[in-house]
């Protein structure tokens, strides 16, 4: 067992990726993910790996496409505006069934936005990672420890299902330091053989082709439906969520990533005031833990989503509970992190029977532009 060390989220994630067998990293500088690239630039040459600063995000993701097609465990890292640029390559990777780990240390948007923490890429990550009919797996860590643990899982699931996997972090998780126990390095020899990869056939096998092109419509539909079968398996096997304080809960807060830490503080404060409130933290955003949310929805009178956005995950929560209970929202965006006290006020209003969608421009505590 490794010892506990104090590390920044971005660096813990980078080291965990190396320990998970990642030997190729292609990226382009952008705040606030800089530490991931800097760590890789320092470490990769010493372990016989590749760190390459690409000419653009577009080039970086296509280098990832190439290295993944060649069978390597490969990663890229960026932040919101840069991930928009990577969408093209990610769509091609979905179409060509290529695994890779893509880090998005989110910042405020749209456009150039800001460089402070945000969760406004939820829709992009879970709905629209490029054109076409497809998905990627999306993990939302909430601690430095999870930054490390989930990146290792991301490589495994990517290879298992031949699908790109995103770690949807944010500037807060990336930049903060926490104690972390890093995962043990894997033995590269134990990784499953990728018989589909481009390695040169060495006159030993039929040649492999990696492609997302199907000019014959029926072949394209067949390919998409085959991939959908895999998505159904993933939706059954891989949803993850952490459920806390639910035994006696009459209402519950739903939050992911860094927002869940603030929500937990608020839940504790509200409980100290005698409010029976639970907490649900989705860890996978796609596949969304629908069944867990649905079960929670059956148990409580109301739900409150807390996000660093104007409300994106709330749509998945409402779908999961089929609007059988009122789902309210509280959040800030563009780098303003909500305070636990603000969330406590929102919890109290939910308990009082209100349904609201608080957008903070009217009033941070009582505003009701719903």
């Amino acid at each position, binding site marked *: 067992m490794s010892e506990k060390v104090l590390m920044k989220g971005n660096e813990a994630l980078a080291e965990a990726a190396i320990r998970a067998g990642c030997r190729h990293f292609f990226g382009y500088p952008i705040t606030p993910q800089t530490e991931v690239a800097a760590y890789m630039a320092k470490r990769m040459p010493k372990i016989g790996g590749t760190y390459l600063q690409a000419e653009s995000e*577009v080039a970086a993701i296509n280098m990832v496409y*190439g*290295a993944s097609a*060649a069978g*390597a465990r490969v990663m890229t890292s960026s932040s919101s505006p840069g991930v928009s640029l990577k969408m093209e390559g990610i769509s091609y990777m979905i179409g060509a069934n290529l695994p890779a780990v893509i880090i998005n240390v989110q910042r405020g948007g749209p456009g150039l936005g800001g460089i402070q923490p945000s969760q406004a890429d939820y829709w992009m990550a879970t709905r629209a990672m490029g054109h076409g009919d497809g998905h990627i797996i999306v993990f939302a860590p909430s601690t430095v420890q999870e930054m490390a643990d989930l990146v290792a899982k991301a490589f495994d699931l990517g290879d298992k299902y031949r699908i790109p996997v995103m770690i949807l972090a944010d500037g807060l998780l990336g930049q903060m330091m926490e104690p972390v126990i890093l995962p043990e390095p894997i033995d590269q020899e134990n990784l499953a053989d990728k018989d589909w990869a*481009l390695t*040169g*056939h060495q006159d030993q096998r039929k040649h492999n082709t990696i492609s997302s*092109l199907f000019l014959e419509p029926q072949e394209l539909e067949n390919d998409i439906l085959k991939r959908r079968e895999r998505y159904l398996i993933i939706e059954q096997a891989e949803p993850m969520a952490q459920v806390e304080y639910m035994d006696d809960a009459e209402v519950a807060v739903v939050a992911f990533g860094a927002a869940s830490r603030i929500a937990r503080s608020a839940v504790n404060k509200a409980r100290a005031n005698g409010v029976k409130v639970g907490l649900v933290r989705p860890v996978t955003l796609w596949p969304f833990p629908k069944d867990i949310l649905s079960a929670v929805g059956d148990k409580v009178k109301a739900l409150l989503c807390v996000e660093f956005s104007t409300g994106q995950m709330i749509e998945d929560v409402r779908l999961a509970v089929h609007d059988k209970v009122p789902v309210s929202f509280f959040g800030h965006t563009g780098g303003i992190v909500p305070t636990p006290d603000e969330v406590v006020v929102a919890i109290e209003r939910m308990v009082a029977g209100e349904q609201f969608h608080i957008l903070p421009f009217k009033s941070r505590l009582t505003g009701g532009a719903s």
Partner: protein
Amino acid sequence: MTTLTAEPVEAKVAAKPKTLFSRTPVLTDHITNYCPGCSHGIVQRLIAETIDELGVAGKTIGVSPVGCSVLACEFYSCDMAQAAHGRAPAVATGIKRAHPDNVVFTYQGDGDLASIGMAETVHAATRGEKITVVFINNAIYGMTGGQMAPTSLPGQVTQTSPYGRDVKAVGYPIRVCELLSTLDGVAFAQRVMVDTPKSVRAAKKAIRKAFEYQIEGAGYTIIEVLATCPTNWGLSPTKAFAWMRDNMLPYYPLGVYKDIKAELAAASADAADKGGE
């Protein structure tokens, strides 16, 4: 005086038929999708012959991006990757970095290489990625039906330059070999064409040299092939070659634009001369 004697008819019949031309092994038996008279078939055959002659089919990985070049994925029996439009040099970079001992080539058209993929092209070249780029310059977008390309000539009529390419409005064609030859990462750059048996032989020699340089680890190598697109030019194959010679050749002169091994040899010969004085 020599007496001519007729060969017995039976002997002719008994002679084993001699194969004069056949498919080189690395090509698949996929039926070509290319239009009659198109240069793609000739160039892809030359790449295939090179791979087979060098005996590297088992360790070669090809990359074919968007445009008519994407069809190449079907024609080679070495490992192949299809790439997004313009991104072949980046994909090839990823492959080569993962497998430095493999032979990696890209097969790209002019819109792909010199328009949407110019950043990837220039940076793969300046990094000296050990890949071979075969660049088909036919001065038009073929797959999408004949639009203006970055290499379309001044005044050239295309679907999207119906009054002729107006250089004052849309700028000038890009001379890729000349541009890339300024970069230190480029080991070999040559412009060739494939209009006659003689020029085809020269093109083959250039492609082979580029592959050899890659295998030796010399750096980035590119062969630009002046090519025809009879369908979108609206010309017969022979007239298309004549148009190419009359119009493209003056703008895109053939020749070796970069050859670091020749430069090194010349430099050391020069130094030896000076040392002898």
